[in-house]
Structure formats: structure tokens, C-alpha cells
């Protein structure tokens, strides 16, 4: 089955790309193609000019440069928050134990989770778990971070804290591709938005374009639905 057709875009340093669209439109698959969790049968992905599907490329090294934040967090259940963040540094980047720990604490601090460093994932709220998930990706100093619906598994009252962290990241120049229906977030920081439907790009443009004059009726209806279902959470974003 072909999930994505002719989807092509470029992402510059420090840009935030927001991908949205109905479920089953291939948003998650798009992200999973980029870091090869689901390798595409056709098509190419370039990271800083390097084709990551090229045979001489070590995919693990590439993945270390592409962070990923999951909808269901996927924190390592047997590890404390701090070890979730430091394990990539230790096992992939070869940091010594102490250095990895120090760096992990710094990153946890940046998502305001340093106080929870010694808790296991199951002892944290969804919002806290997702902040650790973001810290785990951040710690690797990736070139780009992929966010796969990072707030859609969260209770409404926990969404704000995660969006705030993502907003701070975006503003500090982190390159991100975000699959989300949080239009407030998109409005605030997206450099471009892409509306996917049935695996093709239906419409793309700046937030202004989408929120003032979207071309297709489909996008208009979808945005209306989103507003009804989720609200825009603009008040959550300072």
C-alpha cells in the first residue's frame, strides 16, 4: 500500500515545520520515513546534503542526529528520568558516565524536570513524561527533532506545559518537524505548515496563509473542526 505520494519539502536550519491533517493521512509515516523507522520504498531523505539512504551511510549515526519525540512518550520504563536522558549519550555517543549524567541533568533542567530526575516514568504525569521525552531527544544535540503528535495523548490540563517547552525550543532556534493539531503552537512558531491528506500535500503555506485565507475547502473545514474539538490553546502559550 502506498502511504505517501510525492511529498517533498525542504527544512532550513532553525525552521519549524508543522504537519497536520486527518488521521490516516500519513503524518506519522512521514516522520518515520525521515528517521527510517519505516524506511521508504522510494524517495530520498537528505540531512545536511547527505542522502541517509545511501549504502555507505551508517543509519545509527544518522538517527543519533535526528531526535524523535513520540505520541506515547516511549520512555524506557526500567530507567529513571535521568537515565532515560543519559542512555543515548552513554551508549551511542560514548560519553563517560559522569559527563553523561551532568549533561542529562542540564537538559532536564532546561525542560524543568531536574527535580524529577530520580523518578521512574510510571511515577510521572503524562506531561512530565513527555518533557523527559523531549529532554531525551535534546540531549543528543540533534540537527533536527521530529515530534509525532507530542500532546495528543495528554490530558488537556497537561498540554500547556509541553507546548511551552516546545515553544521555547522553537524560539531558541531548534529545527523541528512537528506533527500536531495544536494550531496555537503552529500560529506562534511555524515557518511553514503542510496539510496532508491521503498521503499527498493538499496545501502548504505560512500560518498567515492558513488562518486567513486557506485555498481548499477541505482545509477550511478541517481547521474549523479542530477549533471546535480542541480549541487553539492559545491561552496556554505565553
Amino acid at each position, binding site marked *: 500500500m502506498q502511504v505517501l505520494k510525492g511529498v517533498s519539502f525542504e527544512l532550513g536550519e532553525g525552521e519549524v515545520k508543522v504537519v497536520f491533517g486527518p488521521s490516516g493521512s500519513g503524518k506519522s509515516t512521514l516522520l518515520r520515513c525521515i528517521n527510517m*523507522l519505516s524506511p521508504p520504498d522510494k524517495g530520498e531523505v537528505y540531512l545536511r546534503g547527505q542522502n541517509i539512504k545511501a549504502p555507505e551511510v551508517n543509519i*545509527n549515526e544518522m538517527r543519533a542526529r535526528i531526535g524523535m519525540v513520540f505520541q506515547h512518550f*516511549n520512555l*524506557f520504563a526500567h530507567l529513571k528520568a535521568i537515565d532515560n536522558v543519559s542512555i*543515548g549519550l552513554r551508549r551511542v555517543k560514548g560519553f563517560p558516565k559522569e559527563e553523561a549524567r551532568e549533561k542529562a541533568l542540564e537538559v532536564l533542567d532546561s525542560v524543568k524536570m531536574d527535580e524529577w530526575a530520580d523518578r521512574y516514568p*510510571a511515577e510521572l504525569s503524562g506531561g512530565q513524561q513527555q518533557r523527559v521525552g523531549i529532554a531525551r531527544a535534546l540531549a543528543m544535540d540533534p540537527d533536527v527533532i521530529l515530534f509525532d503528535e507530542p500532546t495528543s495523548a495528554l490530558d488537556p490540563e497537561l498540554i500547556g506545559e509541553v507546548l511551552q517547552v516546545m515553544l521555547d525550543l522553537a524560539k531558541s532556534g531548534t529545527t523541528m518537524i512537528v506533527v500536531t493539531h495544536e494550531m496555537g503552537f503552529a500560529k506562534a512558531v511555524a515557518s511553514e505548515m503542510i496539510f496532508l491528506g491521503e498521503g499527498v500535500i493538499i496545501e502548504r503555506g505560512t500560518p498567515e496563509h492558513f488562518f486567513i485565507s486557506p485555498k481548499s475547502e477541505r482545509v477550511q473545514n478541517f481547521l474549523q473542526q479542530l477549533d471546535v474539538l480542541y480549541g487553539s490553546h492559545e491561552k496556554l502559550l505565553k
Partner: protein
Amino acid sequence: MSDTPTLSEIIFNIIGRGLYHTLLLTALGLLIGFILGISLALMRLYGAKELAWFSSGYEKLFRGIPLIVLIYVFAFGLPDILWYIDPLELRLGSVVLALSLRSAAYQSQIFRGAILSVNPGQMEAARALGMKGSQAVRHVVMPQALRLAVPSWSNEYSVVIKDSSFASAIGIIEMTQAAYFVSVNFRELWALTYLVLAVLYFLFTYPVTRIFGERQSKKLKKLGMGGG
């Protein structure tokens, strides 16, 4: 033993003469079964097709043979090949071999189930960080699978310690054989002797399955590991 023994003498007789071999056979059977069982589980899940077939065939074979048959095969067969080894050691070795080869088949199933019940998202998150498949298995999947396996593994312990009693069939003096000697020497005490034996086995199994089975299950649930 000429005077009729008291209850405590029966207990100490069974423990004193038999406990060492019961625990030795159990420990070796479980340990070797553990090493083989994990290897078989990894072969089945991550190995090449041929290794997976071997593992699957091994499980079917050793789950289909009664333990006592394995013990007889090794106890009667090994001396022909290893005639220069001390007969008692060879008999112990036969039981260890039988216990561990059979336990490996069951432990392989335990570990395979445990690995499969680790949430697939854990493997994905590890790969997304840039870990190699082997690193992800070693640092993320296995640590969780081993914890998830503890309840079933404690059950396997209780099976192996009880089945070490089959060693009595080839004359190894473990707890059951020690009790048998008491019961034939003092026929009027046979019921009491076997009651003592049964209680001893129970005391060696129940607390272990209780602590590592039920308590571990609760703890794992609290940590949110496994399917549910």
C-alpha cells in the same frame, strides 16, 4: 539407626543427608537452563531462520520427553562414553544435564514471552536514539524482559526443585532418597517421614513463588512494564 527416631531426627536426617544434593541439582539445572534458555529465546526471536528453527525444534523435543527418560538415557549412556569419570559424579551430571536441558526448553519460552511483552515502542525509541539493534536489545529490551520474566521464572524454580527428586531413581541421595531410607528402616514412621518431606519441599517453594511471583508482578505493574 536402631532406636526409633524422633520427629526432629527425621527432619535433620532428610536435610542433613539430602538437602545438599537437592539444592546443588536445582541450582545447576536452573543456571545452565537459564543460559541455554536465554540463548534459545534470542535465537528464536532475532536469529537467522536456521537458528530460529533449531530453537523451535529444541523446545518441542525437550518438552515432549519425560524427565525420567532423559535421566535414564544420560545415566546409562554417559558411562559408556565417559568411563574414566567417577560414577557418582557422572550420575549427578546426568541429572543436571536432564534437568537443565529440559528447563532450557521451558525457560526459552519464558524469556521469549517476556521479550515479546516488552512494549514495541521501547525498541523504537532506542533505535530512534541511534542505538544498534544489539544495543537496544541489551540495554533496553532485555533489562525489562528479565524483570518481566521473574514471576514465571520463580515458577520454573519450583518445578526444577521438585523434579530434582527424580535423582533418587538412580540412587543419588537427595531429600527424597534420604526420606526413602528412613521410611524403609522404620516402616511404622513412613507416613510421618513423607509428611516431613512434603512440608520441606513446600517450604522451599511457596515463599519463593510468593515473593518473586506475586510481589514482583505487583511491582512490575507499578512500573508500567509489559502489556498490562
